[in-house]
């Protein structure tokens, strides 16, 4: 079954994600990213970030593993084509961010193997004051169902 434009605007429930030091450390270690901006308080304070931050791709790990997606998708047809992060405020250890996943766009394209659909999923992360901190934008290629 193909998706139709009515999915645009659908949102998941909101969930709160707490940024934990051990989690950030494990994420940076897995990548092998040893930037002192994630670990050295004094170094980080003197930087443009004015304090410790998380690696730039860390927002991808900010799912609670429980939240239901705003649309039901067949994982076998999904391909993560592109990823974008829009940063508004630094993400700090100890932050409790309110996150919500939203379908921001859906469009069709004819590909070599038939019609393909492109789905944009935005995870918006806001701080306790309700201000936008980061958007993690996932562009998903949704292939045609096999008959």
């Amino acid at each position: 079954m193909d998706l139709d434009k009515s999915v645009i605007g659908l949102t998941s429930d909101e969930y709160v994600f707490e940024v934990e030091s051990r989690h950030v450390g494990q994420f940076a270690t897995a990548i092998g990213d040893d930037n002192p901006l994630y670990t050295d308080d004094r170094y980080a304070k003197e930087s443009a970030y004015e304090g410790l931050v998380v690696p730039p791709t860390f927002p991808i790990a900010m799912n609670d593993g429980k939240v239901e997606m705003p649309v039901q998708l067949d994982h076998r047809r999904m391909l993560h084509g592109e990823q974008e992060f829009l940063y508004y405020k630094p993400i700090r250890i100890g932050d409790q961010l309110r996150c919500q996943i939203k379908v921001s766009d859906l469009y069709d394209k004819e590909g070599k193997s038939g019609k393909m659909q492109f789905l944009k999923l935005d995870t918006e992360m806001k701080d306790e004051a309700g201000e936008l901190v980061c958007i993690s934008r996932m562009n998903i290629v949704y292939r045609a169902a096999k008959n």
Partner: protein
Amino acid sequence: MIKDWVLEELTVDQKLEPMVKSPITKVQLAQYAGASGDFNPLHLDDGFAQKIGMDGVIAHGMLVMGFLGEYVMKIAGKEARVANFKMRFGKMTVPGDEIRCSGVVERTYEEDGKRCIALELTAEKVSGEVVGAGSAILQLT
């Protein structure tokens, strides 16, 4: 990585010193699965990967983006914040692959009184096979 330039002095088309990562390992994929929460068996279970036509497990695309993120943060150093960062995923990577990250200055401009530097980024295997292309915007403070 040798940083032999100053951010404010970067000019359009200037190439930045590349960064080469150690070969990707299966242990690293397990670490990344745990830290990111992506436990897709395609990245962890050779038997599963072979059943769907691969030679074995493949790396998480987001791990390769993590390498590019490390590179961008090294370029930004202490002087800049990253305002935007994106990547298009291309070829697959597998354990043993060494990824080289490189960048070139696409343009420099002023926005809200801040100097911005737009970078074009490439992640490729050391053989030269491109696995991802991206971009980032650095904002000097």
